[in-house]
């Protein structure tokens, strides 16, 4: 793994740690906002591939 990728991973971990340390009420408010934003997303569903990859069981 290159140094750059390692740095990006570390930064992401640090960002997640900072968010995790917030008070629960604050984190739930963020979650509420995320849901509100998700509801506003309007997207056209892409067509499915004719031969999709499937799990081998």
């Amino acid at each position: 793994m290159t140094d750059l990728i390692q740095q990006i991973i570390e930064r992401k971990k640090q960002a997640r740690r900072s968010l995790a340390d917030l008070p629960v009420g604050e984190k739930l408010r963020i979650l509420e906002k995320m849901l509100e934003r998700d509801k506003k997303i309007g997207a056209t569903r892409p067509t499915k591939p004719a031969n999709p990859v499937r799990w081998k069981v």
Partner: protein
Amino acid sequence: MVPLGSMEKIFRLIRQMEADGVIGRYAIGGAVGAVFWLEPMTTKDIDVFVVLPKTPGGSLPTLTPIYDYLQERGYIAEGQYLIIEGWPVEFIPPGSPLVEEALREAVERDVDGISTRVFTAEHLAAICLQVGRAKDFDRLSRFVEQGALDAEKFESILRGHRLLDKWDDFQRSFLKT
């Protein structure tokens, strides 16, 4: 501070349902439960694990009283969910001894002055390991990464539910660098 909106109302309503005897002991699980211990993560629903009260005459307990109670208050059912304050909420009776234990040992948490009950981080992580979908493994690795799990408690739960082998497999696949 911006007050909590829909989530506050849901926590109050669930507590009231418990006080009214519509549900027995309850606890928040799933992604919303995990948010009590980790960073906020996107989810489409709220999982409320509930002990269903005993029915008169000893017939099998069902979710019908929950649906009746909430529909009388204007909430609508959609598939396995009840839509409460815009959130799909699923009431789930425990389906395994691990979830039964998680419900028994769930902890009270205060959210902006509202008391609610949530699974412990260790039980949430053990349930992720047991269920074993891709999103569960992702959540489990976050619990480990954040240092949110008490090692002794977690291993004791895994031992009690014969999950130690699965934990070894998980560590080999996802945690070893």
